[in-house]
C-alpha cells in the first residue's frame, strides 16, 4: 500500500472532515480570486474609461499642437492631403478624425424658459467612425447620436440639465472658424450623452465633421486622429511604429498615457489600497486553511500511534499526511477555482451597478458607476498555488510532535 493510496483512502474515510477542510480551502481560494478580480477590474476600468471616451490608445496631432491644445484654436491642422496619406498608413485599424474647438452655445426664449449662453467644448466627429472607435456614441441617454449629413448637435447630459434642454430644442452655436471669422449656426439638439467622463458630460458638444468643415471653412483639415491599437495593450510600441511609418508627414504621435498623465496617477493611487486588501485576504485565507488542516491532523494521533506501533517509519507517516494534505488541498482548490471563476464571470459580465442610488441624489456630481471585475490570470494562479502550498505545508507540521512521543504515550491519551 503506497502513500498515495493510503492518503486517498483516508481522505474518503473521513469524508465529512475532509469535506469541511476542503471547503475551508475552497472558500479561501474563491474569495481571493473574487477580490483580486474586483481590484484588477477597478484598475482596468479606470484606464479603460480614459481610453474609451477620450484618448483612444493613440492620438495623432498636428505638429506643435499638443502643448497648447487647451488654449489655441485652429492654429495648426492635419491637412487634407496629409490626411489621405496618414489614413493609408493606419490601414485597417480603428481610427476616427476629430476637430476640437471652443464654442458658445446660446439658448433663446423660443425654446428655453430661462435664456442665456454657456461655454462648451465643441468636437466635430465622423459619426460612423467615432462610434466604432470610441464609446461616446453608445452613451446616448436621450434622443440619438449623430448621423452622416446631420447639422444638429449632441450635448453632454449635465450641460443639457443645466440649461434645461431636451432633444428637439434648438441652440445657436457661436464659434470662430479657420482664419478667425465668427460663425454662427442654429443646431437642433439631436440627443444627449452621459459618459463616465464628467468633463464631457458638463461641457461637451458634438457635431458632424462634414457640417463643421463647411461652416468653419476647415478645408478638410482636422486637429487630431483618435486610434485604437491593434494589440490592446501594446500602445506605446505601436505608437513608435506609427511614428516611424508616418515619418514623412507633419504629425505628432502620442500615446494615451502621455495624454491622460494626471488621470493615470489617480488610478495608481487607488490601487495602492488594493495591495493591502489582498494581503489581508491572504491572511484570513491562510488562517482558515491551516486551522482546519491542523485540526484534521491533530485528531488522528491514535492513528499515528497505531501506525508507529505497526512499525511504520516516521517519514512514511509524515509523508502520508502531507500527501493527504495535498489531496484535500487539491480538492479544495478545485472547488474554490470553480466558485471563484463563477463569481468573476458574474462580476465581469454583469458587475454591480450602483448608479441606482446615485440617481436619487442631485448634488451635481453624478457617476455612472458599475463596478466590474477583470480576468487576472496571475492572481488566479497564485491563489490556487498558494492554497496548495499552505495546505501541504500545514499538513507537515502537526504530525511531527506526535511522532516524537512514545508509542505507548500516544495510545494512552
Amino acid at each position, binding site marked *: 500500500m503506497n502513500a498515495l493510496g493510503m492518503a486517498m483512502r483516508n481522505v474518503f474515510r473521513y469524508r465529512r*472532515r475532509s469535506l*469541511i477542510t476542503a471547503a475551508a480551502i475552497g472558500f479561501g481560494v474563491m*474569495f481571493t480570486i473574487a477580490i483580486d478580480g474586483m481590484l484588477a477590474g477597478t484598475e482596468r476600468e479606470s484606464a479603460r474609461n480614459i481610453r474609451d471616451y477620450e484618448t483612444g490608445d493613440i492620438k495623432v496631432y498636428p505638429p506643435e499642437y499638443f502643448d497648447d491644445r487647451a488654449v489655441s484654436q485652429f492654429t495648426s491642422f492635419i491637412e487634407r492631403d496629409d490626411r489621405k496619406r496618414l489614413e493609408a498608413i493606419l490601414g485597417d485599424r480603428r481610427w476616427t478624425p476629430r476637430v476640437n474647438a471652443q464654442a458658445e452655445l446660446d439658448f433663446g426664449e423660443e425654446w428655453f424658459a430661462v435664456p442665456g449662453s454657456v461655454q462648451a467644448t465643441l468636437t466635430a466627429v465622423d459619426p460612423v467612425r467615432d462610434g466604432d472607435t470610441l464609446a461616446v456614441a453608445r452613451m446616448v441617454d436621450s434622443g440619438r447620436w449623430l448621423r452622416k449629413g446631420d447639422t444638429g448637435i449632441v450635448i453632454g447630459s449635465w450641460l443639457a440639465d443645466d440649461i434645461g434642454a431636451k432633444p428637439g430644442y434648438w441652440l445657436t452655436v457661436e464659434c470662430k472658424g479657420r482664419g478667425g471669422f465668427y460663425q454662427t449656426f442654429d443646431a437642433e439638439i439631436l440627443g444627449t450623452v452621459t459618459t463616465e467622463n464628467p468633463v464631457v458630460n458638463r461641457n461637451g458638444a458634438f457635431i458632424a465633421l462634414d457640417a463643421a468643415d463647411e461652416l468653419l471653412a476647415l478645408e478638410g483639415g482636422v486637429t487630431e486622429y483618435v486610434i485604437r491599437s491593434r494589440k490592446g495593450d501594446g500602445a506605446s510600441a505601436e505608437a513608435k511604429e506609427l511614428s516611424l511609418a508616418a515619418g514623412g508627414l507633419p504629425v505628432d504621435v502620442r500615446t494615451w498615457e502621455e495624454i491622460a498623465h494626471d488621470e493615470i496617477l489617480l488610478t495608481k493611487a487607488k490601487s495602492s489600497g488594493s495591495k493591502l486588501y489582498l494581503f489581508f485576504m491572504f*491572511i*484570513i485565507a491562510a488562517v482558515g486553511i491551516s486551522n482546519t488542516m491542523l485540526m484534521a491532523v*491533530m485528531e488522528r494521533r491514535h492513528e499515528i500511534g497505531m501506525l508507529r506501533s505497526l512499525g511504520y517509519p516516521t517519514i512514511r507517516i509524515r509523508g502520508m499526511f502531507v500527501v493527504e494534505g495535498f489531496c484535500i488541498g487539491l480538492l479544495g482548490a478545485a472547488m474554490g477555482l470553480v466558485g471563484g471563476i463563477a463569481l468573476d464571470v458574474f462580476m465581469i459580465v454583469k458587475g454591480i451597478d450602483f448608479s441606482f442610488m446615485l440617481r436619487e441624489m442631485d448634488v451635481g456630481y453624478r457617476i455612472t458607476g458599475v463596478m466590474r471585475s477583470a480576468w487576472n490570470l496571475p492572481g488566479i494562479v497564485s491563489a490556487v498555488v498558494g492554497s496548495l502550498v499552505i495546505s501541504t505545508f500545514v499538513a507537515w507540521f502537526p504530525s511531527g510532535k506526535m511522532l516524537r512521543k512514545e508509542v505507548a504515550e500516544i495510545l494512552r491519551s
Partner: protein
Amino acid sequence: MWRNRSRTIITASAVLFSALVVSLVVGFEEGFVNDMKANIKSDLTGDIRIMNATYVANARLAPLGYSVPDTSQAIEALRANPVVEDATPRTEFGVAVYRSGDRIPCRACGVDFATSRTFSNPATKLLSGSLPAPLSTGVVITAGLADELKLSVGDKFTAIARTATNGSNGKTFRVAGIALLPNTDYANRAFFLDWRVAGDFLRMGDNALSVQVFLKKGVDEDEAVPLIKKTLGSDALDVRAWYNANGVFAFFKMAGFMYAIIASVFYALASTVIFNTTMMSVLERKREIGTLGALGLAPRRIVALFVAESLEISSLGSAAGLLLGFAILGVAGRVGFDVSSMGGNSVSGMGFSQVIFPSLSPDKYLFIFLIGVAVSLVAGLLPARMAARIEPAEALADR
C-alpha cells in the same frame, strides 16, 4: 474545554484572526472615509458652508461679484452663536500665473491664516519660510508649485485673474512660505493668500466668497443650519451642511458603498473560516458526544453543552482578536499609514491625504464581535445537533 488544549487553541485562534483582520480592514476603510471628511471640512466647507445664494445658483459662471456681504460682521455674529465653535472666511478662485510669456493656470485661495483649519492642521508642514503677515502680499505656495516654477522663499511671481467686475487684475506676490499640505488636492499649482488681499485683488471689497462654520462638538449639522440661518438673518445667503455642498456627498456614498462591499466580502470569508473551524472541532468530538449519551445525558443538554463551549471559545477569540486589532489600529492611528509610498504622489480630486490614520468606531467593534460570536454559534449548533442524534453506540464505535 481545556482538556483538549490544542483543539481549543486552534478554534479560538481561527476566530481571533478572523476578527482581527476584519477589524483591520474596516478600520482602514474608516480611516479613508474619515480622512476625506476631515479634509473636506477643514479645507473646503467647514461643518456648515455659507455662500451667496446667487453665486450658488450660478456656480457654473463663477460670478465673483456675489460674495458673502459684510463677511467680517457675519463671522462675528456666527462666533457669538452658542453652537458655533469658529467661523473662517475662504475665497477660492482661478488665476493664471504669468511666467516668461506662459500663462499657467493655478488655484488661489484667500484664507485667514490665523483661523484657517488648513493651516492649523498639524499635518500641514511648512517646509520653508513662514506664514505671511496679515494684509501683506506674501503668499504660501504648495511644494508642487514651488517645484514646477522653481520658486523659493523670497521669490516673486505675477498672477492675473478675472475680477468681480468682469475686468481683470494682475498682482505680483512674494513667496513667504512653502507648505506641504496633507490634502492631495493641494499638492500642486495652488497658493494661499490673506483673504482680504484676495478680496481687494478681485475687487470684491472686504468680503469672501464663502465662510466655513465649525460647530461645537456634538452639535448636529441639520439642527444647526436653521439656527445659523436665523443668526445671519439674510435670505441672500445659502447655508448648508457640508455633505450637501459640492457634489461631495455623491463621492462619499460611492466610496461608502464600495467599502461596504469589500468589508462584507471579508466578513463572509471570516465567517466561513469560523464556521469551518468550529464545525470541525465539534465533529472531532463525536466520541465524547457518544460517551455522554451513553452516560445518559439528554440530547438537548449535549447540544447545549457544546454550544456553550463554542460560545465561550468564540467570545474569547473574538474579544482577543478585537483587542489586538485595537492595539494595532491604535498604533497605526497615531503613526499614520503613508499612502503615497504605495504609489500615487500627485493625486488630486479625491481629497485624500498623503497619510491615512485608520480608526474604528466603538459600534463597529461591537458589530464585529457579535458577528464572530453569532457565526460560531451557528457553526457549533449544526454539527452538535447532528452528533447528538447519533446513537451512543454508533458514536463510540466510529472514529
